[in-house]
């Protein structure tokens, strides 16, 4: 949906917006801007850059997950295993086999590709929640392998730091955090480009069709399995690359990425932003990653410590805050961050058209009903821009009440009986 609407916008404006955003992100390490309350230091301080780099990395990972979830409608609980793969294969080759960083990373990507092909072709034999559970099982198996398979190789639950000698000087040391930031930004750019390229291509369109109605795709003469596999492999490969970048950001491998919580986090980012909506997903991921890292700060802050005991206890638990945030976002931002602009626009015009906000909300409700567990991109579309002006002349089209039914009909497939 996304790109169709955006294609209707002048292409130049779109490209300009992307370029502008990219330039702004690129320039962050040169800025000494302070955002009190958001970051502890100026933008160019290493702590802030590191935080931002992690946010950008997660944005890329979330995009790769969204290719599966938001664009193809398959819910994987094993996405983290590819991140794990990229991270650990690289680390092990560097630390234990004496590879250079680049060859090791390439080998990691190769392993990721192979794993995606094999796991995908097996797991995609089942669908729906079955697929989710098979991938959960695979993820769990990898997690166990990492934690207790061969601690000498993987470092077990402690993970292991990357041999300092293998890391190029430009990527180590707090001084060089800006380079790590750019690395993460580059990764995000690659993910976004791949996603854009893929989703606007023919197979990308088929993937979305698979999400909408898999059976119907079959009846068009296409094999949905192949398209799901393509999505799975591309997403897996991107995630593997993300693992390598994460490794460099951390300076070591950590089994945290192998846990099911990690993948669940990706899912939350995507939904938080709005599945299938690229900007939304990026925003969701950045927000989540920021909150995940900064809530510990908030909960440890002096203002919380000053609260009376009954309040202070819970607020000093970052997970409590995170959990409450989820619930709040779900309630106050249905459809994810991506719907925020439409919402704001709607609330501006609310005086005139009291019903429009309700429309938006209805549409979302209805849309998610269609697709069960999978998020429905279409559902989160603000519909007002697609107002149709149907020719009265159309001999076959219910003459006389087009205007009344144009948006109305939009809801037809959407009534709960649907």
């Amino acid at each position: 949906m996304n790109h169709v609407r955006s294609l209707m916008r002048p292409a130049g404006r779109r490209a300009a917006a992307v370029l502008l955003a990219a330039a702004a992100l690129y320039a962050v390490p040169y800025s000494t801007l302070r955002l009190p309350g958001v970051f502890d230091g100026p933008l160019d301080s290493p702590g802030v850059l590191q935080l931002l780099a992690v946010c950008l990395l997660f944005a890329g990972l979330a995009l790769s997950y969204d290719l599966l979830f938001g664009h193809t409608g398959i819910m994987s609980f094993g996405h983290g295993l590819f991140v794990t793969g990229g991270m650990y294969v690289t680390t092990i080759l560097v630390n234990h086999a004496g590879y250079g960083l680049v060859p090791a990373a390439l080998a990691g990507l190769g392993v990721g590709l192979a794993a995606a092909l094999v796991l995908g072709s097996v797991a995609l034999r089942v669908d729906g929640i079955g697929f989710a559970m098979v991938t959960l099982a695979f993820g769990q198996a990898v997690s166990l392998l990492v934690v207790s398979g061969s601690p000498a190789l993987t470092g077990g639950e402690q993970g292991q730091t990357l041999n300092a000698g293998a890391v190029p000087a430009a990527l180590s040391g707090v001084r060089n955090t800006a380079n790590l930031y750019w690395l993460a930004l580059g990764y995000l750019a690659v993910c976004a480009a791949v996603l854009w390229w893929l989703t606007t291509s023919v197979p990308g369109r088929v993937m979305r069709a698979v999400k909408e109605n898999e059976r119907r795709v079959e009846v068009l003469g296409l094999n949905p399995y192949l398209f799901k596999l393509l999505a799975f492999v591309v997403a897996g490969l991107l995630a593997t690359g993300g693992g390598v970048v994460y490794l460099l950001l951390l300076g070591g491998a950590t089994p945290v990425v192998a846990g099911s919580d990690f993948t669940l986090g990706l899912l939350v980012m995507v939904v938080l932003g709005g599945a299938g909506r690229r900007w939304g997903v990026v925003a969701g991921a950045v927000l989540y990653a920021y909150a995940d890292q900064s809530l510990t700060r908030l909960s440890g802050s002096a203002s919380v410590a000053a609260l009376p005991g009954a309040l202070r206890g819970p607020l000093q638990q970052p997970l409590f805050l995170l959990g409450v945030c989820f619930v709040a976002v779900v309630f106050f931002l249905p459809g994810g961050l991506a719907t925020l602009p439409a919402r704001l626009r709607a609330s501006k015009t609310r005086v005139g058209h009291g019903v429009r906000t309700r429309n938006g909300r209805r549409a979302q409700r209805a849309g998610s009903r269609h697709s069960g567990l999978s998020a429905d991109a279409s559902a989160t579309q603000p519909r007002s821009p697609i107002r149709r002006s149907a020719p009265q002349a159309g001999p076959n089209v219910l003459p006389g009440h087009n205007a009344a039914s144009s948006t109305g009909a939009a809801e037809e497939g959407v009534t709960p009986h649907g």
Partner: protein
Amino acid sequence: MSTLILLTATGLGLAALYFLVASGLSLIFGLMDVLNFAHGAFVAVGGYAAWTVADHVAGTLGLALALPVAVAAGAALAALTELLIIRPLYARPLDQVLATVGLGLAIPALLQAVWGADPRTWTLPAWLAGTLDVLGARIPTVRFVLIAAALALLGALQLLLTRTRAGLIVRAGVENREMVAALGVDVHRAFTGVFALGGAAAGLAGLLDGLYQGSISPGDGTSLLIFAFVVVVLGRMGSLTGTAVAAAAVGLVQQFANYLSADLGDESVVILLAAVLLLRRRDLKGRPA
């Protein structure tokens, strides 16, 4: 021989624990299509509620008092969750999942804020703390209590769902709330009821998990949740007997695999799940469109 008996009996005890957690999950998922990630938190709350009672009133009496308290705590929390969080989101299943994920994070954190991260020890009455000798195998008494509780719960839920109208209402309501309402049925009440029931089962599971482990900690329920998910999926989502059989399979496989080799034990459940799912081709919920 006695090892075999011991492993079987304790494996079934483990299965009973899995079933206690999974049944509520399966109930809510099977009937209402809500994948409740907060279920583990319900279990933990039930556990803490029971522990608090047993901590004040010692011995068997304390246990007897803890039972209704745990069940009530689970049910009340679940009912509240349904009313305040799930109900406004009925038409947005994905957001429901997200909201329960949030609760699943927040509630254990809250428990930790109140009771601390350290496990709280549960002193069992003497008759429960010991073992029973069965053909030379020393089987902990608690395991029998668990198995009995699981069987009782299975029976009760089975009756409730198949023999009562309430079960019917809920199953129909999941598909089409408006139509059920148009038949003159207050479907919301039925939904709250199901959630409360699932929560009650979770509360019971919390109590029994406490007895089983001899202690409780904030993350207890959550760590059982992943096994419960596996059991629910293996048991074909929402079928109670299926859940029971799956629980037994997982419990026994895990127990014996652990005895044979630690490496096997770790992966056994995963292998079991993957194998079953792949052999059983079609999607579990899917009917041909």
